[in-house]
């Protein structure tokens, strides 16, 4: 009897063995890629950062979210960098001077090499510029009026020539990170070297983890930390827990809630910086003339319904400031044009005087557009409800078709939750981006939510083309006042960039661009 059954039993045993071997294999396959320490706590000379977005590669031209730039700049550098006082400081360039209206002359640093020992050459700059210019819809490209061309003088000196003058080219070149010309291509650079204080030791694209080690041959002051681990933790709550337990040292771009949870915990410090961003509850400017919202008075009246102080204090935990104009106060050229006032009684009486009753609003926004976005929107529903305006919400998940909606191609809406930032640090950039819409641009729906007001547009153009400093400031103020008087937003605020770190992390200087120089960050010994 046993003999009869022996064959299948043997096979069953083999089968089980096979199955467990397969399981083991799968597990080992991962352990080879994941760099595993036994405890999960970072070592004494290892700094661990947890980003909320996956760092697909260190190629700056295609991945330009804030924290990514921090990491990218520790491996690749530009000719210049933006210093703490928002002025360009030389990096790979020893000097960079405007020698003619359309020509900048650059001298590379003496004996500068990449981490693998290759020399940095003018051709590398030329190729880098070419590759950045090829990216469609690039964030960086939008700041360049045109891309300059490189004219080589010798192996250390070259000119950057352009058709028109680019007076801020030294600041703009901080955005272009340099790689060896022979390795640079239009596609994403998965690997490769730079001149920075760190080099990539290993990376796992699947998990979005990077291990950086100190570049021993760095031209500047060497990095104080031996190794930097970059991890990807998509869930905000997981990042908070990981920081609490000391599993990671730095988490950036955190929400006010997370800040509140971390504040006061032993071993954790919060860093904040003013940002270059304005988050708005923006009106739809594509409404027909007969619609109440096309009347600036109605828009003004609705803004009185918004209890900005409560939103700032209770929902956003005092991590933001109410806007005092149409650009963030931190921008160069900002002018104060007014305040958002909470006065529901006035809102009601104004609406009644304007003969607006039975107004219904629809607010649209994309999840994650700004911190605590859903809480703000739900609070707004209540606030508008208090003055008798029924409000409906429509939330879009990332990847949805909010663009079509914004352009008015899919459906009608009244208010949009949206953020706009000015990475140049200039108020004029924001004004041009949002309020300089023309009917020409509106044909392809390329204006900001249909904002086409020719008188405002003329004032912005005048301010942008004025060379005289004093006149320019006056014109800028005039343009901002003109925008304010059209009441484009029901409410607006400037968020702060918030970052949390373990106390052992030192010299972390968070900038207004929500990035920090990794090269200087050290660890307490």
């Amino acid at each position: 009897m046993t003999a009869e059954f022996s064959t299948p039993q043997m096979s069953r045993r083999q089968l089980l063995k096979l199955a467990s071997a397969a399981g083991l294999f799968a597990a080992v396959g991962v352990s080879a890629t994941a760099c595993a320490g036994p405890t999960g706590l970072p070592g004494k000379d290892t700094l661990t950062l947890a980003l909320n977005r996956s760092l697909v590669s260190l190629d700056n031209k295609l991945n330009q979210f804030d924290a990514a730039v921090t990491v990218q700049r520790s491996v690749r550098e530009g000719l210049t960098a933006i210093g703490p006082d928002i002025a360009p400081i030389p990096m790979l360039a020893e000097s960079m001077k405007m020698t003619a209206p359309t020509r900048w002359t650059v001298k590379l640093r003496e004996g500068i090499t990449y981490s693998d020992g290759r020399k940095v050459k003018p051709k590398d700059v030329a190729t880098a510029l070419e590759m950045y210019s090829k990216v469609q819809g690039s964030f960086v490209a939008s700041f360049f009026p045109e891309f300059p061309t490189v004219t080589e003088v010798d192996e250390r000196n070259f000119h950057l020539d352009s058709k028109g003058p680019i007076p801020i080219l030294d600041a703009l070149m901080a955005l272009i990170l340099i790689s060896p010309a022979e390795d640079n291509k239009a596609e994403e650079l998965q690997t490769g070297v730079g001149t920075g204080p760190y080099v990539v030791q290993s990376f796992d694209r699947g998990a979005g983890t990077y291990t950086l080690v100190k570049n021993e041959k760095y031209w500047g002051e060497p990095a104080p930390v031996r190794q930097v681990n970059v991890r990807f933790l998509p869930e905000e709550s997981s990042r908070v827990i990981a920081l609490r337990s000391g599993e990671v040292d730095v988490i950036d771009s955190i929400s006010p809630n997370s800040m509140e949870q971390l504040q006061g915990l032993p071993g954790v410090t919060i860093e904040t910086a003013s940002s270059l961003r304005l988050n708005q509850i923006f009106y739809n400017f594509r409404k027909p003339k007969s619609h109440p919202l096309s009347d600036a008075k109605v828009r003004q009246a609705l803004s009185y319904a918004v209890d900005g102080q409560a939103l700032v204090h209770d929902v956003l935990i005092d991590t933001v400031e109410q806007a005092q104009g149409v650009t963030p106060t931190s921008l160069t050229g900002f002018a104060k044009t007014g305040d958002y006032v909470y006065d529901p009684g006035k809102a009601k009486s104004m609406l009644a005087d304007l003969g607006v009753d039975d107004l219904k609003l629809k607010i649209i926004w994309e999840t994650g557009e700004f911190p605590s976005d859903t809480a703000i929107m739900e609070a707004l529903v209540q606030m508008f409800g208090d003055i008798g305006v029924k409000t409906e919400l429509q939330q879009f998940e990332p990847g949805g078709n909010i663009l079509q909606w914004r352009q008015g191609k899919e459906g009608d809406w009244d208010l949009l939750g949206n953020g706009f930032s000015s990475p140049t640090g200039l108020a004029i950039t924001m004004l041009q981006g949002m309020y300089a819409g023309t009917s020409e641009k509106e044909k392809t729906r390329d204006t900001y939510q249909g904002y086409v007001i020719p008188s405002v547009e003329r004032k912005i153009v005048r301010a942008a083309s004025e060379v005289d400093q004093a006149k320019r400031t006056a014109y800028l103020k005039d343009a901002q006042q003109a925008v304010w008087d059209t009441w484009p937003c029901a409410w607006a605020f400037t968020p702060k960039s918030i970052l949390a770190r373990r106390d052992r992390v030192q010299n972390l200087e968070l900038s207004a661009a929500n990035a920090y120089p990794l090269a200087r960050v050290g660890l307490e010994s």
Partner: protein
Amino acid sequence: MSTTVNNPTHAAEPVRRSAVTKAQIKGSSAARRARSTRIKLWLGTILTLIVVVPIAMANLLPIADPNMQDLGARRLAPLVDGHLFGTDQLGRDLLARVLFGGQTSLMIGVLAVVVSGAVGVILGSIAGFYGKWADVIISRVLEAQLSLPLLMMLLLVVALFGPSIPVITGVIAIAQWPEVARLTRSLVLVEREKPYVDAAKTLGLPKVQILAQHVIPNIFKQASLVILLLLAQAVLLESALSFLGAGPQRPFSTWGRLISDGQDYITTSWWMVTLPGLFIVVLVVGVNLLGDALRDGNLRRSSKKEGK
């Protein structure tokens, strides 16, 4: 599937002359099984009612408006200031949100079960009754759906048609109809061999009528036993979709969304995740127990019938 056929048939004598004591009968496996079925039935009913009754009466109960915000009373712990379950990040009463959210979740669940039940019974009985190409096509579709990445497909469909209650209901029904269809098909396969079907055919009744008037009513009771189990699954599936962001538009609260909102506060406000989750668990455990008990009871009854 023959269960204990040994003793109970002789127990029908008028005067009981047996060495078997009552205690022994009570200890017999059949009696014990009946007892555990009964306990499950009661437990299931109680748990289900604990959740369903307050949800059904949410509009009558003296609780706060689920959308009434009080920014000064954010994230109050349970039992503070008359908030039995505490408040959420905007100072809304969590109990009210859980109960009114439950109305949405339960409604979607019940509707989804009705739709998937109807589709499943119709297609399953067509496959079982007509056989041939109808069976081939329906069985293939059933099989193909098993190998699909289900949740992803559901997310896609929700993205495609927008996250409204009918769409989410439909999506859950799509996920669930195969189970009903498979069961119905196997029941119909047995049923169609029975003499009454032949009789009806001989009488010249059209096939559709035989199926609709005679076969389906006969299998309906057995097929309907899975309904409770499906309801449990539907509630879980709905909460998972809401959790992943594919729930009905705000400010509709659903259980999944309450949990996903609360997730951002787990280190400071445990109640925002724990309590809505407990509501789901209690309801689903109750419904599952009920379903289990009914199925057990039914199995025994049908095996008894076969015994006679």
